[in-house]
């Protein structure tokens, strides 16, 4: 991909990732955040955390299926935006919803399984965000970095449980997300099995690995 193409791609990703926040800001400005604004903002930020997390998880499967290299170049950006939205989601819950009522928050984290897994997902995102720089990848070495960043699968499953357990049974929406997550994981597992059978190392290194198939174009 050309330099200009890469810049355009990044700019598009930034725009799409910031748009939900801009939209919330706009709704806040015109006073249209529904009659229950705190709940609406919390839910919207949660939705976008999960969507962007799934987008970041889609980079590798997309490369496996198509051989394109460009999805990988967006992976770090998307992962960091997922962390950013997760932090905002958490901050609204902490500061606006419960107004720093630490006793109630502590009880909720311990007693409510959906909050427990949500907190766990957020905490697990921290080391991934902290080791997202090129310097950290070098310092850790590709193999350990990859091992560490496989935590993102765990985070995806925790996020799915968080949504599934908080939604009412009559709401089918969590299952749409779970279906996408399952599909993305299945593609990776399929590729891993194929590589094992072929006696090769599975791919998935952060940036410099050889694509599963040669890129159709670059």
């Amino acid at each position, binding site marked *: 991909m050309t330099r200009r193409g890469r810049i355009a791609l990044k700019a*598009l990703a930034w725009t799409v990732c910031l*748009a939900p926040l801009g939209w919330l800001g706009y709704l806040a400005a015109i006073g249209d955040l529904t*009659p229950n604004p705190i709940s609406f903002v919390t839910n919207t930020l949660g939705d976008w955390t999960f969507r962007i997390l799934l987008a970041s998880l889609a980079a590798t499967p997309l490369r496996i299926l198509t051989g394109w290299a460009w999805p990988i170049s967006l992976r770090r950006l998307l992962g960091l935006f997922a962390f950013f939205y997760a932090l905002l989601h958490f901050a609204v819950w902490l500061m606006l919803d419960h107004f720093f009522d630490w006793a109630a928050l502590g009880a909720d984290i311990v007693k409510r399984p959906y909050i427990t897994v949500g907190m766990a997902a957020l905490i697990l995102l921290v080391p991934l965000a902290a080791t997202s720089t090129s310097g950290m990848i070098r310092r850790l070495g590709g193999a350990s970095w990859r091992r560490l960043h496989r935590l993102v699968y765990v985070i995806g499953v925790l996020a799915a449980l968080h949504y599934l357990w908080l939604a009412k049974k009559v709401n089918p929406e969590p299952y749409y997300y779970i279906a996408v997550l399952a599909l993305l994981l299945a593609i990776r597992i399929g590729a891993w099995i194929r590589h094992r059978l072929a006696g090769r190392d599975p791919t998935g290194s952060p940036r410099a690995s050889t694509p599963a198939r040669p890129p159709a174009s670059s």
Partner: protein
Amino acid sequence: MLIKRADRFTHSDVTPRALYLDRRRFITSGLVGGAAALALMPRSARAAAPSGQPLAAQKNAAMSLTEAQTPFKDATTYNNFYEFGTDKEDPSRNAHTLRTRPWSVKVEGHCAKPRSFDIEELLKLAPLEERIYSLRCVEAWSMIIPWIGYSLSALLKKVEPTGQAKFVEFITLYDPEQMPGQKKGLFGWSGIDYPYVEGLRMDEAMHPLTLLTVGMYGQVLPNQNGAPVRVVIPWKYGFKSGKSIVRIRLVSEQPKTAWEKAQPSEYGFYSNVNPTKDHPRWSQATERRIGEFRRRKTLPFNGYGDQVASLYAGMDLNKFY
């Protein structure tokens, strides 16, 4: 869809030109990416407050709260009425398909004089009162709403319940054409077994606070709030208050209610507002009053303990939740 029903919209429903242009400018400013705009757009298409038909009623101060009322717009655009969709704003957008005339309510079961009541007759069966009640949703939010109606007991007395009538069952309209949320979803998905059924013990149903409701805010009930007739039981979580009722049955067995059937581990028959009995997934100790910022403490029986606690004397309400 919009074109077909264009006659239902008045000039006040039209988005003001300035706002429209402002939104235009906002979108073109590039802040909103295509995908996000698509995903979030429906939320902006919020229905304007309906200008309903006025309904005269005598204020019943003795049975009314004096707290500030929830704005009409909030009470009519933030609703749980899954027959019209599961999002809070779905009912206000979709409930225009409900036909509230002709309408009748069949009252039957263990009673001497079972019969059908036409809605026009129901409106005149007893003097209409305005009562300002608190509505506490099981989702931990609440509203203060001026309802119009009369005690359900006035209707039940007309059919003369027999000694075998131990419970009252309320059945909501079942018509997927009028109530699109009743249609089965993808893969036959349906969380609630329609029609929606709710129920009360006989003494709860005969309690003067239990209101057969036909209006709110000085007007006829908007469709999204359960038109043309619903019940309101202010000391119980909102879902106990069945909407758009077509049948009331006097039965000897405790009815199986819609939410009990859907999630028996989470919803019991009584569902009295109880800050000490948590929902399995969240605390019921506090609630957010719509329009307020800080949570407030939830009161036992939603503040109606003086009037109704005696109904449950000797019962373990953490067991019978």
